[in-house]
């Protein structure tokens, strides 16, 4: 089970959370249909560090963002919704080195 740090409640078991997908999706409706479809439906699937939304649904109820390494499941950072994505991920919980640039992630 993952131990996910909620920015409000601290580290909590994964059971209390729901994943809510890709974080920092910017809505830009002033584009043509293919670009709007990209905005709505197309998501990154990086092998490496991904910014994703989680909701502490069986806790404080809040949405927040997490930087997770999709290879090791190490959670490198956790921050409140609306805050910018941290530049330098913190070390993983088990001392794993952050895998910066390990995947094909695109900067937000």
């Amino acid at each position, binding site marked *: 089970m993952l131990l996910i740090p909620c920015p*409000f409640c601290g580290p909590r078991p994964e059971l209390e959370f729901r994943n809510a997908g890709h974080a920092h999706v910017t809505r830009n409706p002033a584009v043509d249909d293919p670009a709007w479809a990209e905005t709505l439906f197309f998501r990154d699937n990086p092998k490496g560090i991904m910014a994703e939304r989680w909701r502490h649904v069986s806790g404080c109820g809040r949405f927040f963002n997490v930087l997770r390494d999709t290879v090791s499941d190490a959670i490198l950072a956790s921050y409140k919704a609306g805050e910018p994505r941290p530049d330098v991920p913190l070390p993983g919980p088990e001392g794993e080195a952050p895998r910066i640039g390990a995947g094909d992630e695109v900067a937000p």
Partner: protein
Amino acid sequence: MTMAARALPPGAGALVSVALVPPATRLSFRGGPDAAEACAAAFGCDLPRRACRAAATEARAALWLGPDEWLLLAPEAETAALVAAIGAGLAAVPHALVDVSHRQVGFAIAGTQAATLLNTGCPLDLDPAAFPVGMCTRTVLAKCDVALWRRGVDLFRLEVNRSFADYVAGYLRVAERGLG
């Protein structure tokens, strides 16, 4: 009262007992810092600003459930008076106040094995160092959403949605057997 009778686990064990708490006034309060302050004045008990903490006086309690959400507990007879008092005190402050007295059922879980019993179905670290007296939170117990409040080292209050009360009581009854 058939519901209460069916939901009541035996609680005969010396190490842990599970009992229903008497009916109570339960109010769900949501609002910003200004609203919380005004609400505390009208309610007569602090609304903790620290995450996952409860404040209690003799007859009232306020449980932090989220950054802008509290569960207010008071004696059963005071529902109407409290709703009126808080509503009047916050007439000019945006907030949400909902009477959820009958939405939930409260259990008191007491005894040296109280944390062990809860931990059969709750993944939180309930060691007093990690979950001290006065801490409260929503969490899961046997896949059921609950609010848990540690009132003493060996005393917990569990708030369960009414429709899940039978299930939770049954679950605790079975888990209790495993404690031997």
